[in-house]
């Protein structure tokens, strides 16, 4: 009789340890997540970016009186670093939504800040306006992939919260200010966008082998294979040629 109790006790202990182990293991995994980091550069001289004539809207032209606005097809920083490049992982099979951050797409001085906004499928993002002129925010997805919409944001309008169902590179425009053109880049899994110097870091990547995709609005896409070790940073540098 007593033996039987012992057996049950031992069994439950084993189960407990196993469960604990599983839970602990997960934590170990979380701590062991690595990252992918690198720099994206533009080969050769930065293409000339045309100035934007905003005289049609006095608010916009006044905002750029001392700092003329230019197209942002290529934004090149010191040392040829290429900004606004979105890096993501091909065929991501990890957890559905990897970040709880809410990216913000602001309409500021009649330009989109940032020019390129990356996000995960299903991730909530905000569209806000800092301008004292009316905008309409009009993303143009392929209707077969995502559902588009078109909303006004007059001065002082509250931010709009939205999300996209499927991966797609979606152009965004303001019909009132035809020079305003930006991108929503909807990817699956962890992602990063290069800063003004072309550097990026994709955080929270579990150990494993991946294909990293780099997308630039005019220069196209490039891919590279990387292997991420537990708790370490893998490097993937890209060089684009201006088209």
């Amino acid at each position, binding site marked *: 009789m007593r033996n039987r109790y012992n057996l049950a006790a031992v069994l439950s202990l084993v189960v407990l340890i196993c469960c604990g182990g599983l839970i602990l293991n997960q934590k170990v995994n979380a701590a062991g997540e690595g990252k992918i980091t690198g720099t994206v550069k533009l080969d050769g001289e930065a293409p000339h970016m045309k100035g934007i004539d905003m005289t049609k809207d*006095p608010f916009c032209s006044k905002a750029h009186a001392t700092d003329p606005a230019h197209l942002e097809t290529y934004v090149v920083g010191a040392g040829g670093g290429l900004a606004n490049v979105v890096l993501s992982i091909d065929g991501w099979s990890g957890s559905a939504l990897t970040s709880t951050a809410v990216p913000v797409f602001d309409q500021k001085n009649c330009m989109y800040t940032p020019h390129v906004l990356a996000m995960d499928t299903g991730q909530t993002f905000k569209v806000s306006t800092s301008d004292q002129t*009316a905008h309409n925010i009009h993303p143009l997805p392929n209707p*077969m992939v995502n559902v*588009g919409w078109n*909303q*006004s944001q*007059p001065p002082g309008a509250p931010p709009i919260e939205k999300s996209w169902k499927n991966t797609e590179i979606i152009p965004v425009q303001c*019909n009132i200010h035809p020079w305003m053109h930006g991108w929503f880049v909807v990817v699956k899994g962890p992602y990063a966008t290069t800063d003004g110097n072309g550097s990026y870091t994709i955080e929270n990547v579990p150990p494993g082998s991946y294909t990293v995709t780099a997308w630039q609005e005019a220069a196209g896409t490039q891919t590279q294979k990387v292997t991420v070790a537990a708790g370490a940073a893998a490097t993937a540098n890209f060089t684009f040629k201006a088209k």
Partner: protein
Amino acid sequence: MRTRLQNWTLLLSSAALLMFPLASSAQLTTSDIQTRIGAESHVGNVTGHAKDAAPDYRRYCVGCHGDLGDGNGENAVWMQPPMYQQPRDFQLGVFKCRSTPTGTLPTDQDLYDAITRGFDRTNMPQWNTLSKQERADLVAWVKHFSPRWATEKPGTPITIPPEPEVTPERIKAGRDVFAKVQCWKCHGVQGMANGPSASTLTDDLGRPIAPFNFTDGSRPKCGDTDQDIYRIFMTGLDGTPMPSFADNIKPDEAWDLVFYLRTFMAQKSKEKEMAKQLALKPVDPNAPAGQQ
């Protein structure tokens, strides 16, 4: 020789660029579409069946909207924007005239109303000569072209409160709304479609499009009752530059704006009389936001 080659590449690449916006429109095959032939519509107490609409569609609609419902019927080439709008591409499932919020599918009643009403200043006539059953069948037929109906439900129609009495105060308040949300950016301070942004507008497929001119006697495409006008700016006209103002105009203000817009219109109205007596001036586009 080299320059000639460069010229060719330039020509080809610019042609490719020009075609890009159109290339994004959908292309489904007959067999894709055929899978949805069981589509139904519910308009009032009438149930429409797509399969019953084929003869009417072939007879009345196919010339413009095309066999595949993509708006590429044989007459479509003769309708060049911005003079004429091209026939709707039903495969995309994007519609201007909805009672539902921007980014949602219209209700069956919305499509039925569009077919019945036709579109002013386009080649789409009124189809009120067809029976109610025939029109309901055509609504189901229109729906069977787009896969969106299989996966999504129509949006919830916006609520339109009862129309209040027109007063001079409401017309003045409507003028303030017109200034605040800056309708004049496209429609012009006198509603003559000559705002600073009017000339550069394009639709979702990159084709030139003009804002509505309130003053030339034409009727709004999505209906000309006060409720229709209310609905137009609150839901937006999807596929066009006209956005939804639902987040920016309160229901009471929306009625004020409807009354103010009526003062621009060529048709005689109570609002027009009142505006004359008020000697209302057009809004000042250069006034700082919130100071008219």
